[in-house]
């Protein structure tokens, strides 16, 4: 399997507060990695560092062997290869659903209007939102917004997609539609890193699970390794707490 991302000794502090400490992991093509862990353990910060929305304090992030933290790598260009789906959707409020999915292709990738539109519609169909091309974000439900956000990221044809708790802001009855879309992407071979509290998704869909605790990768392995045979006490305690909460 070809390695897309290689994260080495990544650290991040906010002021005096170390949030990520010496994180090491690789992402290969086709992997679906779930990152689980308690609130405040640094999961979002890790994803945001990978997408350069935060600047790491130390370490390297190699994208196909090139360190993207070096000064001569253009962050916008790199980001266009690494899609991100946010907890709060972050759809552009001033644009229709269609425009949300074409604006990046037009301005960043320089595609023609026709090409961008065809591509956008293709991905909107994939997430079941093609009928809503003319809607504005404020006219959509949360689940619909998140599916459009996924289509917007896909329309850039990224090599890897990052999800930061994509279903946490949704009403319970809308979680399913978004997870269904994500499962479909995984089945199609999309490389994904998913920060999630949906343990069923992490168990059933991902190829690898990372448990983060207090800024470090505490445990890592197949879903079976982590959920059925966790080795670390912290992991066991976290999973037990999760089961209690239901």
């Amino acid at each position: 399997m070809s390695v897309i991302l290689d994260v080495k000794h990544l650290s991040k502090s906010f002021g005096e507060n170390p949030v990520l400490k010496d994180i090491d992991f690789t992402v290969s093509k086709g992997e679906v990695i779930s990152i689980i862990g308690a609130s405040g353990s640094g999961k979002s910060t890790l994803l945001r560092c990978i997408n350069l929305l935060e600047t790491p304090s130390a370490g390297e992030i190699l994208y196909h062997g090139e360190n993207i933290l070096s000064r001569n790598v253009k962050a916008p260009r790199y980001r266009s290869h690494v899609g991100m789906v946010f907890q709060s959707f972050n759809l552009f409020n001033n644009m229709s659903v269609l425009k949300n999915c074409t604006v990046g292709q037009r301005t960043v990738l320089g595609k023609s209007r026709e090409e961008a539109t065809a591509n956008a519609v293709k991905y909107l169909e994939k997430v079941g939102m093609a009928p809503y091309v003319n809607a504005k974000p404020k006219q959509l439900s949360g689940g619909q917004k998140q599916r459009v956000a996924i289509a917007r990221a896909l329309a850039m044809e990224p090599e890897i997609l990052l999800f930061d708790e994509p279903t946490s802001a949704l009403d319970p009855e809308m979680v399913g539609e978004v997870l269904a879309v994500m499962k479909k992407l995984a089945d199609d071979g999309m490389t994904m890193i998913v920060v999630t509290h949906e343990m069923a998704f992490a168990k059933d869909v991902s190829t690898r699970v990372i448990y983060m605790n207090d800024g470090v990768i505490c445990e890592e392995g197949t879903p079976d390794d982590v959920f059925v045979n966790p080795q670390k006490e912290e992991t066991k305690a976290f999973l037990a707490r999760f089961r209690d909460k239901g």
Partner: protein
Amino acid sequence: MYSSLMLSRAGLVASNLGDDIAKLWREASPQYLKGARDTLILAVVATAVGCIIGLLCGILQTLKYSKSDFVLKKIFINVIKVVVRVYVEVFRGTPMILQAVFIYFGLPYLTSNALRFDVITAAYVVVSINTGAYMAETVRGGILSIDRGQTEGAMAIGMNHFQTMVKVILPQTLRNIIPQIGNNLIINIKDTSVMFIIGYAELFAAHKAYVGATYLYFPSAVVTMAIYLIMTVVCSLLLRLWEHFIDGPENFNLATTDTLALTSGMNNFPSGKRRRAR
């Protein structure tokens, strides 16, 4: 004064007022209408130019640099910010009537006539840069009030700072500051009256010229006020229309049907908030 005198003969005045206004309108309506036209054009043009100045200054004030940027870039950005701040503070913090004096009389005086504007240009320049100073702050606030998630969403698909601003942030800022643009336009319609100080012939100047010749202070004031009010009300209506135009239709049309969501089929989600099922 004249107005208190009028109160004592209230009965008479009502009919006199009508006659006086009719007389005034017969004699001088072209001057009043020309004044109104020049007021309106000055206010509209200067507000528009002021908005462009404000937009530029507002954007400049939100420029950022990161630690890793080159020293020269950091210095450059800081110098720009200081210049913009000084401009804003000076032109917001002094009366427009004095700014007019300064630019119309002061500039030729200081440059021994090398730099001088005619009355009309001076009026446009003063009102424009005055409006620009107010709009700079409005735009800055407007940009800051856009949710950080909008910027992050744009950055995440690879847009750079400039593209993010032009495509995502500024259109939303512009929508949000339309009420402020309207405020400025209305203020300008009224406050351009101080341009009489440099002899710009707008509506208030027409009033002054007429009462100077006829002493019909109150009838002329009534007419002048009515014209100002008509202009401001029409302008605020037009701005409302503009807002509606930008907002687009309340509802949208489905292209076909949504296949994934069980809960769909509703064309209109006014607030995005939904009752939980069961």
